[in-house]
């Protein structure tokens, strides 16, 4: 532990010693207008960064601003004196001038200020450097602005632009550039009109810019000092211009890229600063400045501000090949791709699940409906079959009173014609007719439900004893025909149940008909069919039993008789008991068969309905 700490301290000391051996390099950075004047401020900032990064020695940086550049006829003397005093006792290793005013100043005064100190001129356009007067101590890292390319870019993106407004100030350097621009733009004058703002105050420029025709474009060249003599920081000026102008603004300076200009071919401060720093490091390393020749750095590949393209409705397809589009505001999709993907996937999955469930539900409902329909249809058919079996008894029961009525009526008609008519007898006849008519209609009422071709279930509260009576009415003639003694033993208690009465009537009819069929071969006089009802208050159920006096059911068939198509009767459908079981189970009951005293007993049990006292 102690050893490690000691080694760390030693390493630290060695590092500090190494540092102490290398003297810092004194560098003067001379600004043209001021530390914060764009675009030079950006050149200076990136140069500082690059220099600190590239230099093997520490840099002792002095900065001064040639404030005089803002004004055309300012006396440079005092500033020269200031620098001379400042650096009289501090030997500089390098002077770096940024921007052409600073470059010009150093060139003019280096003999009196820094006769042998190497200088690097940068942040300057090649045309602003007087290459002829360069000394062996001077190196130039310039840019090369191709203004024709700027106009070509504007016309390429906005082919219908009738008017390009050139925003530029009126300081000496700006006047120089105004001339350069006029020369560069001359070939385009047939295609587009150039409007020059160089002789306007900035306020006037803003006013004019705000009311430009819709399809105009602005070329923001430079604004340091306007025609009214007011100095401006070009970056802020551009911001204000973009705020008021309702037309696209262009500039060749990458410094302004992202501050409201559309973009296009731009000069590259990064490339320029890197080169300038590299040259500075070489000079401080001992190389002769005069021997370092660099090519002016031209425009980099076109770059465009996506937001501006959107604003001015410029399609990306219109951009030159190799263009880069930056500041793309990511859409919802770009920004939250994974979240959106997951969200969409979840939504989709949900939709699929929901659709599937809905589909399943509708399928099930359809199947249930179909099953219900089939069941009702089978039940109805079973009723029709029962009715068919009973039809001869029914016909007999109805035709008997009808025959009597007809005979009585005709007898009365004849009696009425005699003189005097036997009114007493006619009265008797009419009384009998009324009685027979009632008898017939009772039968019809009892049979109506049996023959009802109804498909809907009709849930009702009713007394099961009533159903027993109805069934007895229906099967009694058939029982009589077959010489079967039909008896009932109904509990005096009410037997409220909730179901479709027709369904329970159906069950009892099936059981009664089965019982009667079971006694087919039995001797007359021993045929008994007994229907019994009882209430079971403990279990809250009602129980109905139908007992015959036949030969009973073989034990092995006691449960299978409720299966579909099980039949021992030649003309049976085998559906009677399955239907009975389906119906009873539908209403929450049970049905079973057993043998008692060698005879068959069918029973079913249903829950007792709680009738609301009303």
């Amino acid at each position, binding site marked *: 532990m102690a050893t490690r700490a000691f080694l760390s301290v030693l390493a630290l000391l060695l590092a500090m010693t190494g540092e102490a051996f290398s003297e810092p390099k004194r560098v003067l950075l001379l600004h043209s207008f001021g530390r914060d004047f764009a675009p030079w401020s950006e050149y200076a900032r990136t140069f500082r960064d690059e220099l600190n990064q590239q230099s093997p020695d520490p840099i002792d940086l002095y900065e001064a601003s040639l404030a005089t550049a803002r004004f055309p006829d300012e006396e440079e003397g005092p500033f020269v004196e200031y620098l001379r005093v400042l650096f009289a006792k501090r030997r500089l290793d390098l002077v770096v001038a940024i921007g052409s005013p600073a470059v010009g100043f150093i060139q003019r005064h280096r003999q009196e200020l820094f006769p042998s100190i190497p200088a690097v001129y940068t942040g300057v356009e090649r045309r602003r450097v007087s290459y002829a007067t360069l000394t062996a101590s001077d190196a130039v890292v310039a840019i090369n602005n191709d203004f024709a390319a700027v106009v070509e870019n504007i016309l390429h993106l906005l082919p219908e632009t009738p008017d390009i407004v050139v925003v530029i100030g009126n300081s000496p350097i700006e006047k120089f550039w105004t001339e350069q621009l006029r020369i560069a733009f001359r070939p385009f004058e047939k295609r587009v009109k150039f409007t020059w703002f160089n002789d306007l105050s900035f306020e006037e420029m803003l006013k004019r810019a705000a009311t430009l025709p819709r399809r105009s474009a602005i070329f923001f060249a430079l604004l340091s000092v306007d025609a009214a003599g007011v100095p401006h920081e070009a970056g802020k000026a551009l911001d204000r211009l973009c705020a008021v102008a309702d037309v696209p603004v262009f500039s060749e300076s990458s410094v302004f890229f992202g501050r409201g200009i559309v973009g296009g071919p731009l000069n590259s401060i990064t490339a320029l600063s890197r080169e300038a720093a590299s040259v500075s490091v070489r000079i401080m390393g001992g190389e002769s400045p005069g021997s370092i020749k660099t090519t002016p750095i031209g425009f980099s590949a076109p770059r465009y501000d996506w937001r501006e393209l959107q604003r001015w409705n410029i399609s990306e397809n219109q951009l030159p090949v190799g263009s880069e589009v930056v500041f793309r505001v990511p859409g919802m999709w770009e920004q939250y791709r994974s979240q959106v993907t997951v969200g969409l996937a979840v939504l989709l999955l949900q939709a699929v699940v929901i659709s599937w469930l809905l589909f399943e539900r509708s399928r099930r409902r359809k199947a249930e409906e179909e099953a219900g329909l089939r069941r009702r249809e089978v039940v109805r058919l079973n009723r029709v079959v029962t009715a068919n079996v009973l039809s001869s*008894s029914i016909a*007999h029961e109805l*035709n*008997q009173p009808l*025959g*009597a009525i007809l005979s009585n009526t005709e007898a009365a008609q*004849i009696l009425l014609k005699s003189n005097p008519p036997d009114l007493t007898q006619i009265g008797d006849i009419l009384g009998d007719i009324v*009685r027979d008519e009632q*008898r017939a209609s009772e039968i019809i009422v009892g049979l109506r439900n049996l023959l009802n071709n109804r498909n809907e279930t009709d849930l009702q509260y009713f007394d099961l004893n009533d159903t027993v009576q109805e069934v007895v009415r229906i099967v009694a003639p058939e029982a009589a025909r077959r010489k079967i003694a039909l008896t009932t033993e109904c509990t005096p208690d009410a037997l409220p149940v909730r179901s479709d009465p027709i369904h329970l009537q159906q069950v009892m009819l099936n059981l009664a008909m089965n019982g009667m069929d079971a006694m087919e071969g039995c001797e007359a006089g021993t045929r008994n069919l007994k229907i019994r009802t009882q209430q079971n208050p403990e279990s809250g159920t009602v129980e109905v039993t139908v007992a015959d006096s036949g030969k009973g059911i073989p034990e092995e068939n006691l449960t299978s008789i409720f299966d579909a198509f099980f039949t021992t009767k030649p003309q049976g459908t085998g559906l009677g008991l399955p239907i009975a079981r389906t119906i009873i189970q539908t209403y929450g009951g049970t049905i079973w068969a057993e043998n008692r005293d060698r005879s068959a007993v069918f029973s079913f049990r249903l829950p007792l309905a709680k009738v609301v006292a009303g």
Partner: protein
Amino acid sequence: MRTIAVVEDDPSMLQGLSRLLSALGFRVDGFASAESFLDSLAQCEAACLVVDIHLGGISGIDLKRKLVASGNDFPVIFITAVDSEATRQAAVDAGCVAYLRKPFLSKLLVEAISQVS
């Protein structure tokens, strides 16, 4: 005045028929079953029998057969409340003047009776 015997187990029907035939000028002997008719067969003067086929005990058709078997050839008019081809065929085979399905108009009955004389 001719006598018509009526064998019918439905009291209403029997009474209705008896009234009708009486009103038509016949004398009527009514029986509620084939058995009771057979009991009084010896005294029977009926020119014609009106017999219900579906009687409680001996059926109408069996009655006709018994009569035929015992040499009594009363003309028989069958009446029935249950019409089926099998019943009709059985009635015709047993031998009958007419086969009437209840309810029937008196005209048909009168026509059948008039065939007998």
